[in-house]
């Protein structure tokens, strides 16, 4: 769609990257552009818009519409300006008598097979066909079309075989073939931008039609992943958001940041009044470069879902129904309870959980609440259950807890190793950028027990898929390092210069031991030794090699050890400190990086500085006027243990749902039930709220100002596009609560909170809202040394000085299979759903995934008499649940897999409380289970649902 709201011009063809410059003359003006630029783009740069239909700058030029013709002095004919590159000294004319006549003729033909219902068309005012008819001065259509694609019936009432009715199967957009001009922008966007190849042009000549795969497919049944790239590219009403069909065109737009995964895409929230009409990916967003996925582009309906709670609520006991009260009453009630607990049980008996879905400013305030107001360090965040091992592992080896690259870096990678991540589903916009690089020839190595969508897809296939047994990551990573060291594939110059040479020699001795060889570990890992050797050689010698990893690395008993092993691999091969390489954690939630940066962990203050350091405490003691406790506080599992013990009594939990997201649901429930004041601050009555005494309604990302920090350390602006539906942004709610607890906080805008962060935290010292406004975004560290931020880390040296090799001994997890539990369960995500599903389940995304299912290998299913779609009982040493099975060879025999997006499934009833040795990140990815046919929901599921229903009652207003 054209951008009619703010000037965000379409240059027609992508920018050329050449450093060689070329000067030419267009319509009498000289212009200098990079070699390889199209004439169309060069003209656009001096403000001359050559009429066009099939060209748009998100995809390569195609040259099919014949509207963008130009004349070049000394050359024959009228070449298409989109496919003709600039040449030195040429003189181009874009508007001549001949061109005008040709263009009008072309438009006349287009319009002769297009319905003229512009006034009632959903693209009215936002249609490039309409604009071009105007631009070329089309005044008359001389042809009377006999055969058309847009009339349902001919004049005698016989059905028109060329007429295809509108396809409304996708919940978010329609495909209306009668409006189609077959410019193939959608097909090319699906190929080039998204990389799914769901769309094609079938037929030839007059019969050419855009088609979702096979003729029998509709949009929903096809391979389409609903990323919206085709809708974005369509110049007419053919592919149109249903929200625009319903509401009309937007009248203004505000740039903001997506609140789903850690890619952190920039979007334009397009508004009419205070109604959100649509979200469109922002072309200049540096994380997404104009692309989007089904979640960010379309799944924002949860923000106005009827389940959203808009009034504060309180209750004496979790067995009572909720009472709606005023904000004042809620604050007084909550503060009195908390103060009572502190008085009776001491100041360490309460704590907070910060949110990785809220802004940096909000997270900062919540940890400040516990440190400065409650005066303890009892703060934790959901990163505990996802990327805490990344913090530990990268901190130990490199000196800082963050990914080393920006996402643009993948464009220069020659070898991409994906470990324990499925970007296709979890980080789809990054996956599209990665696949683009793979289609250009980069090699792929995937380490994953499952044959995920990231292993193989249209025009890419992993050179090595190491389908390891769940729980053997350290063995695989060590075996890779063994090959690199023993075959002398390491980069000695890099290691001598950048790492501690003595430590390297210790490490080399350790890893060279035959027990770490792929052959020795083959029995443990289940990966053929030759595959490991091949992958190690490719990684070490294939050029720029980049590692991207996810929760399949961290959520293990040895999560931190694997992160260290990955860091070792990059140091061994010198794949650190330049573009195209690096170690990149793919973060789960939008602001996991930010919430960690902001001091959400109980042992460190903002900027990853341990609370034991007196000089660090002094900074905050001075800023906040309080004493900071030098002892580490309670982590989430400690809070729950302490609650059961009776020493932890009160919790303020913002924007997290620990009852659903944390391991061993029964233990979490027991811990929450033992607390005397649980305050839940959320959009919805989530599962944790079943055990809450106070509910503060939250605001969505559309309703507040602030910043999110994505997986590239990029601080992006979140902008308020509408007033908070429940009255206050979340930072205001936290401030009200702090004031009720006696604090003297008087922030009037989140920018003041960022000023405090910059003042106290060296890596944020140069960050201001003005800078983010001017630069669009900024990557930390941003300070005097790097005033414009830091796209690449460890360029000239590691943050800690010398990179540090650490031995990675493989220790088998104690979660072992045996006769009672012979299968290994591992978990993951699906594209259309997000995390515990609180948001996506409340959107039409359920069209793709309405329940969690268990993937099981045909062999294991056959043994157990399990059929496709039948109910199965999934039992572990911790508990059991039921769900439906699907039979697939994506998993190996002996391995089963499920997602955790639906609370009914209660997948975490199954998971055990084994956890990472260093950080207590739970071992979600390995659970020994048994699977058996079943008739329906387990007793626990029924009991749980009964309790949840009872707990969610809201008393009728009197």
């Amino acid at each position, binding site marked *: 769609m054209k951008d009619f709201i703010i000037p965000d011009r379409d240059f027609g063809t992508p920018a050329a990257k050449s450093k060689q410059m070329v000067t030419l003359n267009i319509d009498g003006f000289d212009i200098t552009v990079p070699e390889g630029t199209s004439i169309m783009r060069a003209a656009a740069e001096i403000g001359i818009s050559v009429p066009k239909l099939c060209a748009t700058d998100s995809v390569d030029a195609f040259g099919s519409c014949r509207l963008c013709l130009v004349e070049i002095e000394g050359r024959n004919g009228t070449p298409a300006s989109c496919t003709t590159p600039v040449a030195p000294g040429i003189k181009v004319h874009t508007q001549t008598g001949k061109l005008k006549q040709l263009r009008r003729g072309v438009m006349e033909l287009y319009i002769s097979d297009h319905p003229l219902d512009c006034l009632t068309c959903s693209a009215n005012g936002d249609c490039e066909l309409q604009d071009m008819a105007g631009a070329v001065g089309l005044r008359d259509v001389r042809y009377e079309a006999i055969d058309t694609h847009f009339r349902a019936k001919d004049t005698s009432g016989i059905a028109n075989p060329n007429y295809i009715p509108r396809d409304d199967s996708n919940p978010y957009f329609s495909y209306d073939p009668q409006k189609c001009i077959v410019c193939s922008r959608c097909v090319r966007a699906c190929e080039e931008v998204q990389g799914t190849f769901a769309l094609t042009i079938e037929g030839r000549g007059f019969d050419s039609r855009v088609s979702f795969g096979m003729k029998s497919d509709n949009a929903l049944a096809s391979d389409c992943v609903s990323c919206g790239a085709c809708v974005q590219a369509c110049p007419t009403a053919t592919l149109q958001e249903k929200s625009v069909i319903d509401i009309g065109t937007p009248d203004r737009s505000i740039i903001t940041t997506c609140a789903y995964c850690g890619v952190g895409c920039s979007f334009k929230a397009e508004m009419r009044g205070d109604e959100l009409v649509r979200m469109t990916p922002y072309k200049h967003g540096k994380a997404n470069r104009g692309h989007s996925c089904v979640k960010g582009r379309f799944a924002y309906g949860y923000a106005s879902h009827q389940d959203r709670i808009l009034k504060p609520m309180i209750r004496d006991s979790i067995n009572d129904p909720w009472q709606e009260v005023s904000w004042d009453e809620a604050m007084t009630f909550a503060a009195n309870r908390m103060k009572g607990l502190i008085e009776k049980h*001491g100041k*360490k008996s309460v704590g907070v959980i910060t949110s990785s879905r809220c802004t940096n400013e909000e997270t900062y305030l919540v940890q400040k609440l516990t440190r400065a107001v409650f005066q303890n*360090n009892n703060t934790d965040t959901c990163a505990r259950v996802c990327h805490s091992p990344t913090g530990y592992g990268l901190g130990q080896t490199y000196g800082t807890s963050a990914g080393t690259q920006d996402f643009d870096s993948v464009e220069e990678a020659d070898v991409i190793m994906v470990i324990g991540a499925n970007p296709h589903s979890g980080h789809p916009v990054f996956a599209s950028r990665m696949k683009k690089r793979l289609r250009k020839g980069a090699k792929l190595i995937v380490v994953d027990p499952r044959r995920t969508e990231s292993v193989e897809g249209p025009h890419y296939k992993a050179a090595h898929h190491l389908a390891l047994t769940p729980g053997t990551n350290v063995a695989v990573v060590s075996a890779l390092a063994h090959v690199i060291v023993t075959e002398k594939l390491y980069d000695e110059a890099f290691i001598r210069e950048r790492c501690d040479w003595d430590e390297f020699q*210790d490490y080399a001795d*350790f890893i060279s031991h035959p027990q770490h060889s792929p052959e020795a570990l083959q029995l443990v890992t289940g990966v053929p030794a030759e595959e490991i050797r091949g992958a190690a050689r490719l990684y070490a010698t294939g050029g720029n090699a980049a590692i991207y990893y996810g929760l399949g690395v961290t959520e293990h*008993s*040895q999560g*931190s*050890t694997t992160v260290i092993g990955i860091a070792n691999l990059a140091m061994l091969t010198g794949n650190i400190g330049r573009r195209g390489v690096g170690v990149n954690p793919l973060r789960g939630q939008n602001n996991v990086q930010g919430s960690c940066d902001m001091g959400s962990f*109980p*042992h460190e203050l903002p900027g990853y500085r*341990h609370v*034991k350091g007196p000089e660090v405490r002094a900074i905050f003691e001075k800023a906040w006027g309080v004493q900071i406790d030098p*002892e*580490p*506080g*309670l*982590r989430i599992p*400690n809070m729950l*243990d*302490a609650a059961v013990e009776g*020493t932890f009594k009160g919790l303020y939990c913002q924007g997290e749902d620990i009852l659903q997201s944390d391991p061993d649901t029964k233990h979490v429930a027991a811990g929450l039930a033992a607390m005397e004041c649980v305050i839940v601050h959320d959009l919805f009555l989530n599962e944790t709220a079943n055990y809450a005494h106070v509910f503060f309604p939250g605001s969505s990302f559309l309703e507040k100002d602030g910043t999110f920090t994505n997986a590239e350390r990029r601080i992006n602006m979140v902008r308020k596009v509408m007033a908070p539906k429940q009255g206050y942004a979340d930072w205001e709610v936290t401030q009200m609560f702090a004031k009720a607890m006696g604090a003297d906080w008087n922030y009037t805008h989140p920018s003041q909170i960022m000023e405090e962060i910059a003042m106290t935290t060296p890596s944020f010292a140069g960050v201001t809202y003005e800078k983010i406004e001017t630069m669009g975004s900024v990557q930390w560290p941003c300070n005097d040394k790097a005033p414009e931020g830091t796209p690449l880390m460890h360029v000239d040296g590691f943050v800690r000085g010398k990179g540090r090799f*650490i*031995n*990675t*001994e493989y*220790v088998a997890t*104690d979660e072992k299979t045996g006769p009672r539990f012979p299968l290994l369960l591992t978990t993951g995500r699906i594209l259309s759903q997000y995390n515990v599903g609180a948001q996506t389940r409340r959107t039409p995304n359920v069209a793709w995934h309405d329940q969690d299912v268990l993937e099981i290998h045909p062999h294991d299913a056959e043994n157990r008499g399990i059929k496709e779609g039948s109910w199965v009982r999934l039992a572990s*040493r911790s508990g059991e649940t039921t769900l439906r099975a699907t039979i697939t060879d994506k998993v190996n025999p002996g391995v089963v897999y499920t997602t955790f997006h639906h609370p009914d499934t209660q997948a975490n009833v199954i998971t*055990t*409380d*084994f*956890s990472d*040795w*260093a*950080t*207590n990140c739970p071992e979600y990815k390995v659970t020994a289970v048994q699977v058996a046919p079943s008739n329906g929901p387990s007793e626990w599921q029924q009991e749980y649902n009964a309790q949840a229903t009872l707990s969610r009652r809201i008393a009728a207003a009197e």
Partner: protein
Amino acid sequence: MSHDAPHAKLIYMANQIAKFMESKPHDQGLEGLASHINDFWEPRMRRHLFEVLDAGGNGLRPLVVEAATKIRRPAEAA
């Protein structure tokens, strides 16, 4: 895993750390184990650990027992 025995979970966690530290040279591992517990275990957990250590360290790996003198004893009051 079963946590029926007192502090079984804590003993398990301390031993997990020990297993990682045991692959380092002995002195580094000893130092590493103690500072890991000092840095990440809140006083309540350390108090429980000392209850086990003071009772003879039953169930703890030798490295944990050896590191006891380097682990910070929490202040008595909660």
